[in-house]
């Protein structure tokens, strides 16, 4: 039995279709990330799962139970918000207890649950303080605690780290991952626009755009075999290189864009083998090697360096190859100069081809 099942879900506000015919199945104990840029519908979907928004069509099942018409409190979920949403006038303990007291739980049960949550999240010394006296990271932990004490096994996270600075974000990211490992069988649905968070935390990622899921898969697949041009461009930093040209399928298939010709025999075509036509060729900067590392690779060429961006550990090089812009990464210690012509190479097996019209993976 899946933990969360979404069946043909749609949501419209008047004429505007915010979510369209979504199907999603999440396993028990899975960490699923909804990833996308603003306005793609990821937070909306989360709110629908939570029951805070009424859907226009479709069904939602949680732990096998149809909760499509249930109130949020009856769905067996806990939620953590971007702004933490802690009740400001109550102590941390009060915040954790309020919902439980309202549900009529006996005092010792409440105390037990609070103690357990406090221990897991390391917030025991904070119990008597008020939210205003806590740091951002501490507040976030209390917010998670509020969901923990509900004793549910589906947690919803709505961009919980977006309000924190980069360093704190990195720390809390790991803590969330550890928390997931510690709480077995707890399903976590996590919304973010940050692909690093998605890649590091997720068991599977659902990339969303315009209210529909573009690709659902584990991080490695999404990274290596993006299913369309949008996903390829969204994941990966620095972003993927694109070159527009044509696929010539007959004989030994190859991709041609002016002087740029890449043999495609090692490329894994989706569907029934190579099809001709206009296409976009994508190769990630980190898969393009320079100098000695390029020797032996199926595709080799010489490119002219235009701009160099040293970033410490790596250096990003902007170059021009047969009139096309090509970015690639080299070690931070390499010294290069503008105008220099350098040998580069890559393996087409690591590339991605997309149809020029449908933008789907070829």
């Amino acid at each position, binding site marked *: *039995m*899946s*933990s969360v*099942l979404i*069946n043909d879900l749609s949501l419209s506000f008047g004429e505007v279709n915010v979510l369209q015919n979504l199907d999603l*199945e*999440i*396993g*028990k*104990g*899975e*960490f699923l990330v909804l990833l996308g840029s603003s306005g793609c519908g990821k937070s909306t979907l989360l709110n629908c799962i939570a029951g805070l928004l*009424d*859907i*226009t*069509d*479709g*069904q939602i*099942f949680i732990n*096998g139970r*149809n909760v*499509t*018409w249930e109130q949020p409190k009856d769905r067996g979920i806990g939620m953590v918000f971007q702004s933490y949403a802690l009740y400001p006038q109550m102590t941390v303990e009060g915040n954790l207890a309020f919902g439980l007291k309202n549900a009529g739980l006996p005092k010792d049960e409440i105390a037990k649950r609070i103690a357990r949550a406090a221990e897991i999240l390391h917030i025991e010394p904070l119990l008597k303080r008020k939210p205003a006296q806590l740091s951002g990271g501490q507040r976030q932990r209390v917010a998670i605690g509020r969901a923990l004490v509900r004793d549910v096994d589906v947690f919803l996270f709505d961009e919980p780290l977006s309000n924190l600075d980069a360093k704190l974000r990195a720390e809390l990211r790991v803590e969330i991952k550890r928390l997931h*490992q510690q709480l077995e069988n707890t399903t976590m649905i996590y919304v973010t626009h940050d692909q690093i968070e998605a890649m590091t935390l997720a*068991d*599977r990622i659902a990339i969303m755009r315009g209210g529909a899921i573009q690709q659902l898969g*584990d991080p490695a697949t999404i990274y290596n075999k993006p299913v369309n041009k949008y996903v390829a461009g969204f994941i990966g930093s620095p972003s993927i290189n694109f070159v527009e040209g044509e696929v010539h399928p007959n004989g030994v298939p190859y991709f041609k864009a002016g002087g740029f010709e890449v043999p495609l025999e090692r490329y894994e075509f989706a569907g029934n083998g190579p099809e001709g036509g206009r296409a976009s060729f994508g190769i990630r900067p980190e898969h393009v090697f320079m100098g000695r590392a390029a020797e032996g690779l199926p595709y080799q060429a010489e490119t002219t360096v235009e701009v160099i961006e040293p970033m410490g550990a790596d250096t990003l090089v902007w170059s021009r190859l047969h009139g096309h812009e090509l970015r690639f990464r080299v070690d931070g210690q390499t010294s290069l100069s503008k105008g220099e012509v350098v040998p580069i190479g890559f393996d087409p097996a690591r590339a991605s081809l997309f149809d020029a019209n449908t933008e789907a993976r070829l």
Partner: protein
Amino acid sequence: MSNTGALNIAAAGADAAAQELAGPRGARPKRALSGRNIMIYGTLAVVSLYYLLPLYVMMVTSLKGMPEIRMGNIFAPPMEITFEPWVKAWATACTGLNCEGLSRGFWNSVRITVPSVFLSIAIASINGYALANWRFKGANLFFTILIVGAFIPYQVMLYPLVIILREMGLYGSLTGLVLVHSVFGMPILTLLFRNYFTSVPEELFKAARVDGAGFWGIYFKIMLPMSLPIFVVAMIIQITGIWNDFLFGVVYTKPDLYPMTVQLNNIVNSVQGVKEYNVNMAATIITGLVPLIVYFASGKLFVRGIAAGAVKG
């Protein structure tokens, strides 16, 4: 981790198919007439009725002839509509001193309000600008005194102002009243303008100074043109407040210079003998018309003005 997920999903595939059609689907059924909606709209409707009632009664009474009024039901719409009470209220109603109706009071009010609005806003906007952008010693102290002063009941300062105006030879004149209004309008308006000008990005101001502009130059060329909305809000506050004023009008002017509100009170409350209720109500409406028009025309800006100027008496 990912393995557990994949295994469970494969197994769930069959279950999902079976669950497909089971149970509720789509939007939660919502009756438009749900209990909650009835309570909300119902309450608001009843309350709105209570609020609209006086307006309705005013209108209706002012359009009836006296015999109809004597029949008793103030809520009944007029059987015969007559505008005579309106004409009478405007032109011939007696205020105890003369029988010229409200028309004199109307023009008095206009002659009081227009200069007062202009003067008080001019002073306050320059004050607010000086406070926001040009720091000088003691500025904050005087400003605090001003704000504290806004809470002091007018009655406390009433007589000293009489003395001051008498010394200046302005007691009993419209000019004196205009000055009084400007003085008492200062705290709120200065606060309003000061807060607005502080929110203008300082870079604009600094760039202008680098260009060589001085105090007045910046005010007229930069600050003024971009603060139109706040001027409108200030005008709304002042027009409403000054037009509706009674206390200052009755203390600082002579009877033939009384503003409309004072005249209205005289017409209604100082008449001996037969009370002409319809004329009274017509007069009341006419007096309330100007601020009401300002209110309805200004919509959201009025609400903004209130938030800023809510300390008005």
